[in-house]
C-alpha cells in the first residue's frame, strides 16, 4: 500500500496535464470559430441606423480591427488572466456574469445527477437480480422512451403538468431569497426533467454490467459462504460493475450540460444556459465565448474526476502495490 499514493498522485498529475491541454485546444478553437461568425458584431449591436464612424469606433474599442494573430494573442493572454472580455451590452466584465450564474447551473446539474443515481442505481440492481420481471421490463421500455424524447420536451411536459395543471410547484425562475424550501421547490422540476432520461439509462447500463459481474466466480464464493444477497449485490457486485457506468456517465455530462441549458431556458432559471441563450440572440459573442469555455471546462473537469474515480473503483489500476 505504501506506493499507492504517489502513483495515484502521478496519475492525477498526468490526467491534469492532459485536461489543461484539452482546455488550451478549446480556447484556440473558440477563437477560430469567432472568426467565422457571420455579421459584423459592431454593426449588429449598434443597429442599422448607426453611422459608419460609430461602427468603426466601436470595433476599434473592441479590438476587432486588429490583425488575427494579435487578436489571438490578446485573447489567450486575457483568458489566462481570467479576463473573458466585456459584455458588449451591459459593459460589465463577462467573467463576473459567468461567476454570478455558474452556481445555478452547477447546482442544477449536480441535483440531476444525484436524482438519477439515487433512483437509477437501485433500479439497475433490482433489474439485474430480477431479470424479466415486470419492473425490469417496464424500466427498459420507459428508459428507451426517455432517451428518445429530447430533454426540453420532457421539461415542457413537466412544466405543463406539475406547475400549470396541478400547481404543485412554482412555475419559473429561482428564489432569490434565502428560503431553502422555495429554492428546492424551484429546483425540483428542472432537475427532474434532466434526470428522468438518466434514471433509466443508468439502470440499463448498470443492469448489463451487474449481470456480467454476478456470473463471475467471486460472487459464487460469497454465495457458498452464505453472504446475504443484499451484501452481494450492493457491495461486492456493484463496485466492479460501476466502472463502465461511471465511464459513460462521465461522457454523458456533456449531454447533461446541454440539457441543463434547455431546462434553464424552459424554466427561466438563471444559469449558463440562459446567459448563452440571451448572448446568442444578441450576437454578444464575448459572452457566448465565455459560456462555451466554461462548459468545456466543466466537461473536461468532470472527465478528470471520472478518470480518477477508476483508481478508487479498481485497485488493480494502482499498479505500484504489485508484488
Amino acid at each position: 500500500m505504501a506506493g499507492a499514493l504517489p502513483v495515484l498522485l502521478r496519475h492525477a498529475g498526468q490526467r491534469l496535464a492532459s485536461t489543461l491541454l484539452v482546455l488550451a485546444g478549446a480556447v484556440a478553437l473558440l477563437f477560430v470559430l469567432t472568426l467565422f461568425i457571420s455579421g459584423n458584431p459592431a454593426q449588429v449591436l449598434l443597429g442599422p441606423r448607426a453611422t459608419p464612424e460609430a461602427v468603426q469606433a466601436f470595433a476599434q474599442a473592441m479590438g476587432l480591427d486588429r490583425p488575427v494573430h494579435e487578436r489571438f494573442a490578446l485573447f489567450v493572454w486575457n483568458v489566462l488572466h481570467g479576463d473573458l472580455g466585456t459584455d458588449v451590452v451591459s459593459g460589465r466584465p463577462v467573467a463576473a456574469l459567468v461567476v454570478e450564474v455558474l452556481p445555478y447551473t452547477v447546482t442544477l446539474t449536480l441535483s440531476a445527477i444525484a436524482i438519477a443515481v439515487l433512483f437509477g442505481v437501485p433500479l439497475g440492481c433490482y433489474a439485474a437480480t430480477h431479470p424479466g420481471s415486470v419492473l425490469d421490463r417496464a424500466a427498459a421500455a420507459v428508459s428507451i422512451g426517455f432517451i428518445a424524447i429530447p430533454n426540453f420536451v420532457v421539461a415542457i411536459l413537466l412544466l405543463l403538468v406539475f406547475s400549470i395543471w396541478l400547481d404543485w410547484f412554482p412555475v419559473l425562475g429561482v428564489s432569490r431569497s434565502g428560503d431553502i424550501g422555495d429554492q428546492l421547490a424551484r429546483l425540483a422540476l428542472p432537475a427532474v426533467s434532466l434526470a428522468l432520461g438518466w434514471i433509466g439509462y443508468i439502470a440499463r447500463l448498470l443492469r448489463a454490467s451487474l449481470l456480467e459481474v454476478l456470473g463471475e466466480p467471486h460472487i459464487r464464493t460469497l454465495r457458498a459462504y452464505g453472504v446475504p444477497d443484499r451484501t452481494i449485490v450492493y457491495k461486492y457486485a456493484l463496485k466492479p460493475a460501476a466502472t463502465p457506468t461511471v465511464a459513460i456517465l462521465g461522457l454523458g455530462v456533456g449531454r447533461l450540460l446541454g440539457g441543463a441549458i434547455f431546462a434553464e431556458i424552459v424554466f427561466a432559471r438563471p444559469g449558463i444556459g440562459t446567459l448563452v441563450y440571451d448572448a446568442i440572440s444578441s450576437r454578444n459573442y464575448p459572452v457566448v465565448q465565455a459560456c462555451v469555455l466554461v462548459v468545456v471546462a466543466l466537461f473536461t473537469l468532470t472527465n478528470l474526476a471520472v478518470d480518477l474515480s477508476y483508481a478508487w473503483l479498481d485497485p488493480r489500476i494502482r499498479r505500484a502495490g504489485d508484488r
Partner: protein
Amino acid sequence: MTASPQEAEPLIAIRDLSVSFATGAGPADVLRNVSLDLGRGRVVGLVGESGSGKSTLASAIPRLLPRNLSRLEGSIRYGGRDLLALPDRELAALRGTRFAMIFQDPMAALNPVFRIGTQLVDLQRAKRPKDRRRALLARAAAMLARVGIPDAERRLSDYPHQFSGGMRQRIMIAAALLAEPDLLIADEPTTALDPTIEGQIVALIEELRQDYRGTILLIAHSLGLVSQLCDDVAVLYAGTLVESGPAAAVLGDPRHPYTRALLACEIGPGVARRATLASIPGEVPDATRLPQGCVFAPRCPQAAEPCRAAVPPLRTLGSGRSVACALV
C-alpha cells in the same frame, strides 16, 4: 478412525441424485442416480474426467446449482434432513456455517476490488453474526498466518492481485477453515496451480488435518492426489458413479473397468500428477445424448451384450465398496 464409514452414520448420504440442466440441445443429464456416503471425519476423493459432473455433484450439496437447472431428484441427507427438500432460507443458513467451499481458480474466486480483510470478514459473517469487525479481522489474520501467509496482519489490507496464485489458494483455505464447517468441499484446489505450488498446497492440506477434523470432499484431477490425501474415493464417469469405497482398497484392487483405465493412465502417484484422464481412447458421451445401458460401454474393453441392455446399478460389494458394472 475406529468405526468404518459404512457402519457409522455418515455425515452426508446422497441417494439417487439426478441433476439435469436445460440446454439448447435439450436437457443435459449431468448426474444420474448417484449414491454416495461422505463419512464423518473422512477425506473423500471424487475423481473423473473433466465434464463428468464432479463440480455439479459437489455444488448440489449446498444447492449452489446454475439457474438453468431443470431437474433435481433424489435426496441428500444431512443431520436428519433432506437438503434437497429444505426451504431456500434454511439451506442458505447452512452455507458458510456447516458447509464451506474452496474453488479451482483462486485467481477468480476472490473479489478483485475489495481488500482481503474485508472479504474474510464478510465470509465469516454467517458463522459469527454477532462478532465485531475487529475481532473477525483478528481471527482472519491468525488463520492466514496458520495457512502460511507471512506478515498476515498487514496483508489483510492488500487486494487479491497483490498475491500469487498459491497465496490466494491459501487465503481460500483460510476462509474455509474460519467457517469451521462440518463439510469442506474443495473443488480441484490445486488444478490451476503449477506443480511446485501444487505440492505446497497438498502439503498444507495434509498438515491442516491435524487441526481440522471435519469431512472433506476433495475433487481431484488425479488418482495420485487421491491416494495421497484421501480415505475414500468415488469415481464418476459421464454423470454416473461407477465405483466407490476406501481409497486403499479401490486403488489397490480396482473393480470397474473405468477405474482400471484411469489407474493405467497414471504410471505412479508422484510422476503422473499431471497425467490427463483423457488418455483413455474414445470420448466422454454428450450429456444430452447418453448411450443406452452402461455409459462406459462405448469405451469399455470388456463391453458385452448385458452391458448395453440396461444401466448397471451401483451394487455394494461389502467392506464399504460399491461398483456399477454388469460384469462384476
